[in-house]
């Protein structure tokens, strides 16, 4: 009997389409809000100017790097370019690494979106863990480079 199978397929397609549209309707205002916030942040807080904040001890530089990367927004390529410029200005590799890693793993701007869609506890703890790990990864990466005698 092919008819019930067809009906079942149609019902599943309709259910999936409805669920997808419902998800999209929830997502769109959040997405629009994040995009608008990103534009505002990029315009009013030019990350390039933050280069002057560095120049303390290695740990403080790493902390500053992680904090700066956490509140920054934009394509990861931007973090590589700014990271390269910071290195040329004499900022330590640990600080630059913390900056690049937190840029791509911590999302302060999209935190409201993450909290709304995945829960407050999940979003807050995840971002805190990512922040801590950005400093740890910076230390590990640079230490490994020195241990292998590959530091630039």
């Amino acid at each position: 009997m092919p008819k019930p199978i067809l009906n079942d397929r149609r019902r599943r397609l309709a259910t999936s389409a409805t669920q997808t549209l419902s998800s999209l309707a929830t997502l769109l205002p959040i997405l629009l809000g994040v995009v608008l916030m990103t534009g505002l942040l990029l315009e009013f807080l030019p990350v390039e100017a933050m280069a002057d904040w560095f120049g303390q001890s290695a740990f403080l530089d790493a902390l500053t790097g992680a904090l700066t990367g956490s509140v920054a927004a934009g394509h990861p390529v931007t973090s590589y370019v700014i990271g390269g410029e910071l290195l040329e200005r004499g900022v330590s590799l640990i600080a630059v690494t913390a900056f690049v890693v937190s840029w791509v793993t911590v999302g302060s701007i999209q935190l409201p979106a993450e909290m709304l869609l995945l829960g407050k506890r999940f979003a807050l703890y995840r971002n805190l863990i990512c922040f801590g790990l950005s400093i740890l990864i910076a230390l590990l990466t640079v230490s490994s480079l020195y241990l292998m005698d590959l530091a630039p």
Partner: protein
Amino acid sequence: MTARSAARGGIWFLAAVLTLYGFAYMLYPVSTGYAMDRSLALAGRLLPVLGIVVLVLFFSNLLLEREWVRENLGVHSGPRGWFLAAVGGILAAGPVYPWYALFGGLRSKGMRTGLMAVFLYTRAVKLPLLPLLIHYFGLAYSLILFGYLTLLSLPAGLLLERLVGKQAPASPDSGA
């Protein structure tokens, strides 16, 4: 968080951002105009990713049965679950926020919290951008950095599970 409260929260969030734009425009009209231009450019770049996410959402709603998700991405998925999440994160394209909606749905079907964290963490490993990273920081640095990012995604996921639990409480209308 239920889908309804997420939707309501999203509208409030957008309203708050628009209010912020209103104040910014009154104080700095030119810069606010540039901010809007930047946002529009970003939205344009986001559209293809949003298209991909909508397709993935549709097919995951259609094809991924609760049982499959529980078996492959659930609490008892084991190394296969971690592997799938890590590879998925590395291959996922575009900004992260459109992917939140997919995880809202998958979590309501039984996806493990730690695997969501692993996916979101390994998104930092940008294979298409590897040549650029090598250009700025060198080959050894780039490979070591990507290696640590992938390796530490696992403890990040496990730590998050200790803090928020392995699975979200079941909710009939959860997921975005």
